[in-house]
């Protein structure tokens, strides 16, 4: 189970990486495993204003619909459009090529875990 140490993690199994004023957000490998076959992803529109904690989209697998939550406040800068046509690709590189969205923000992420803390968190959840 991969949990890259340079990323931060939320309780909703999303990862976040900040580079200057851009936060890149995706879902973890653990989330992908739990979700099963992914058939559809609903993205927010670029330009949408987000508040941390907002439900901003959906990842749908054959078994369930899971909300994507904004881990940080800001404005949607970019969404990973190739994923719209091939949502199943989310499973192949969730920390790299299959990022979900980029948010323009100057906020600091609150309520996030380090890789170590996230590892413990998913062990306790099981």
């Amino acid at each position, binding site marked *: 189970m991969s949990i890259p140490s340079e990323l931060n993690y939320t309780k909703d199994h999303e990862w976040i990486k900040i580079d200057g004023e851009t936060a890149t957000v995706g879902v973890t490998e653990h989330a992908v495993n739990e979700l099963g076959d992914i058939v*559809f992803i*609903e993205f927010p529109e670029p330009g949408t204003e987000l508040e941390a904690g907002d439900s901003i989209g959906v990842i749908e697998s054959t078994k369930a619909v899971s909300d994507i939550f904004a881990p940080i406040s800001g404005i949607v800068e970019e969404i990973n459009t190739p994923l719209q*046509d091939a949502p199943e690709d989310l499973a192949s590189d969730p920390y790299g090529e299959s990022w979900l969205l980029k948010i323009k923000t100057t906020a600091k992420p609150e309520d996030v875990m380090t890789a170590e803390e996230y590892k413990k968190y998913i062990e306790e959840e099981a």
Partner: protein
Amino acid sequence: MRLSTNPNNELKRTALFNEHKKLNAKIVPFAGYEMPLKYSTPEAEHLAVRNSAGVFDVSHMGEIFVKGKDALNFVNYLLTNKITTVKRATYTTMCNKNAGIVDDLLVYTIDDEEYLLVVNASNIEKDYKWIQNLAKEYGFNGSIINESLEYSQIAIQGPKSSEFMEKAFGTDLKNQLSEIKFFRYAYINIDKTNYLISRTGYTGEFGYEIYGKSNMDKIFAKLVSVGVVPCGLASRDSLRLEASLPLYGNDLDNETSPLEAGLDFVVKLDKENFVGKDILLTQKNNTNKKLIGFKIKTDERKPIPRHGYKIMDSEQNEIGTVSSGGFSYLLQEPIAMAYIKNNNFENINVDIRNKLYPIEILELPFIKKNK
């Protein structure tokens, strides 16, 4: 879903539970039982049933015996389909006085005076009470016995079912099985124990359902050992949806009549009086709603229309509700069934999380059945 670790909890286990653990099944609560949801992936299990053979533990289902001199007349009063003394299985609904469906079930004619009703797991207690109450009303003096806890049930489904049954239990057994016609049954001996085996199933494929009181775990294990793929509840649902077989709780409930559900073939209006008959007579060619199948009209990726989602007409009026929806692994896209009020199916949409997707009505079944 949480794996139950509390030995004192109220969830029951079937006689096959240890086999599921050995196979590392993901166990979930269902109808009061700890049941296998999947062993590998729902897709692999689904496709195994379509292309080879899969085996299901369906021991959670209920078995209620109705016995007595007047049993034939009583079951015909209880049920919408015509039950006869021919030794066979009959699919039917059981309605209330408003023609709403209490349950859908299989009835096995064991003998002129003995009938086995195989009912949905989630309805066992309800059905048992219902039948007992109706027996009082009708004046039935025979016995009604709930043997659900005594019986286990296994389903083997898929084009290679016979082959695998032969591999597991021998050519003699296979020859006996080949005598069983569709919806017929026979008592077959495996290792000194008698089992009732019928050519029935809930997947749209050729296969058998096996009923027994002992060594069913060994039968399950043997089938898996010769290559039958163990299949859980997830694939059971995706398979029955592709075959457009209704699910009680989703497509059928006590506010829906069998005629609305498209189950005309299990309603024999020329039969003597049965519960719900008078209302059903008024619904002939005149139902308030109708069950249809559909898919979303687009070449792009689409979400799955799920139970409860609304169907809207071109003027944003709500005209229906999705009863069952899921992903079809054969068609590689979402499929769904819905009850719709209108007869006009032009330019209608399904509302998925406040976005409207145009839909195309499909003829049922979604896929051609190979039983």
